[in-house]
């Protein structure tokens, strides 16, 4: 194989990966590379294996065949509550700063995280005392704190109401502005993908493989009604056969 030096430093790389559970084939021959600092969103019909893909990327699961390469440290943000309920907001975020040895430096970074997520005054609250949106913000802060290379987001906003979700997307875009990370976002929310990602990967039904790739170059944060975002959403919906108003052939032409 001819692999260039630059390719080797790509933080995430799937090479012909398949994954089956007993007789159930979930992923088939998938290859994917994520570049440093890139934001990749993975969308697809529910139950198509998005979470399996994420588990493979995080190292929690191993492929049946093919290889997964990961360079750098990884943190995952979960759709359910991944915060430790027995720790306060401050202590939870400090989890993300465990490897910062210097006390003063840790305090400084902690204060910075609180500035970012704008939750001053809630430092000594426990997760169960916060709203869902606040908890997601804390979880993002915990994952972003310290020096992680890769962030894997598993439908992080799915439990939130629409308005909160909009706000959280903006928040995430802003946070990534100040702390660039390599991000893989798994979501069933196409609008979310279109608002946040540099590249959107649409998966097929199970066994999943890549059905379509879409690149967006407009800078973040993007509004949900921005032309590029709307366009991307329409193209994905059409690809999935869910958009009736658009002419099929026209959409195909656009993609190509």
């Amino acid at each position, binding site marked *: 194989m001819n692999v260039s030096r630059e390719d080797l430093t790509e933080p995430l790389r799937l090479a012909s990966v398949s994954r089956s559970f007993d007789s159930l084939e979930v992923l088939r021959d998938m290859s994917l590379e994520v570049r440093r600092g890139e934001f990749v969103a993975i969308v697809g019909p529910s139950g198509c294996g998005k979470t399996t893909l994420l588990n493979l990327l995080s190292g929690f699961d191993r492929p049946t065949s093919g290889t997964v390469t990961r360079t750098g440290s990884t943190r995952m943000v979960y759709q359910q509550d991944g915060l430790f309920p*027995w*720790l*306060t907001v401050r*202590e939870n975020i400090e989890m993300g700063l465990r490897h910062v040895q210097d006390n003063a430096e840790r305090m400084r970074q902690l204060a910075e995280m609180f500035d970012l997520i704008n939750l001053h005054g809630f430092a000594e609250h426990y997760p169960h005392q916060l709203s869902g949106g606040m908890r997601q913000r804390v979880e993002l802060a915990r994952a972003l704190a310290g020096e992680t290379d890769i962030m894997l987001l598993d439908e992080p906003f799915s439990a939130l109401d629409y308005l909160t979700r909009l706000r959280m997307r903006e928040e995430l875009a802003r946070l990534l502005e100040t702390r660039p990370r390599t991000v893989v976002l798994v979501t069933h929310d196409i609008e979310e993908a279109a608002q946040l990602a540099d590249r959107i990967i649409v998966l097929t039904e199970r066994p999943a493989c890549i059905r379509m790739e879409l690149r967006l170059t407009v800078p973040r944060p993007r509004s949900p009604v921005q032309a590029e975002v709307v366009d991307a959403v329409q193209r994905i919906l059409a690809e999935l056969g869910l958009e009736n108003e658009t002419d099929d052939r026209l959409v195909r032409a656009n993609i190509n």
Partner: protein
Amino acid sequence: MFRSSTARFVLMALAFISVLTVLRFKPWQRFATGNTAVTNSTKSREQLGVGFLPVTCHLTCPVTDYATRTSTATRFESQRFTDFPTVVESIKSGRLQATFLLAPLAMKLREQGVPVKIVYLGHRDGSTVMVRQDLAAESLRDLRGKVFAIPSRASNQNLVIHKLMEDQGIREDEIRFVELPPPDMPGALAAKAIDAYFVGEPHAAKAELDGTGRVLHHAKDIWPGFISCVLVVHEDLIRDRPEVVRDLVRGIAESGEWAEQHRLDAAKLSAPYFRQNERVVRHVLTQPPDRVSYRMLTPTDEDLQQIHDMALKIGILERPVPIAEVVDRQFIPQEIKPANIDMQAAKDANN
């Protein structure tokens, strides 16, 4: 956060238990009394725990305890139990070497290979057949079809009642027998759950004083010289400390003689040991005075053989046990003088 609060809790719990331990064992008392003459003298004296239950059949045990508090001979410490199974288990495990025990139960132990000997009796008579106040029963025959409570199948009360039934021509199934713990009998009689019961005092007197029961027979009238409980010691004790056994038997004998001569004082002295109402104990010892006797405490072969035969017949014993194996009369004193008891000191001690 977690570590500190949990650690604090564990520390608090440990501190609490330590405080309790200190309060429980009161080391300062041990230290304080360690210097007094009393402890020094007890230390040099032989000591033995003797088991008893708070029934008047065992009255000589606390009296002996009291009498040997100050005497120079062996110190006998009465150890109160609440039921016979616990007594038996304590003997079997070797933690109790001398005790008062139901006579058939002592033979049963022997049959099971537990080397115990009957060395003396603790009393004669002192059991009573009670019937419900409102029942017009004059004899056992009138109790046909009634519910009759006994303390245990292995009690001599059970044996004697069966012997009487046989003598009077009453069939086994004509009276419905139930086993009840003696303390529950007066209550059961009052609630009319049972119609009659046969038990060691003071559990009969209780119903009499309450007015819920009436004496049908005193044991002395239906079975003169009735034995409920005997003094039992382990053979190990006889082998290792024969002098202590001799002291014990003499102590019991002299306590019995003293109780015979000072019935009111005996009630007063033993009530705190029994933790019973003095009035009830006094009633047993005086109404009538020969309701229970603490004389003639030497077990004869005839006494024991009768109990043995009845036990065998009813099936409490599975095979014959030679009486000579069960009894050991070598420690019984020739001459019995009343124990030397200072009632004034008893009063002081109780106040």
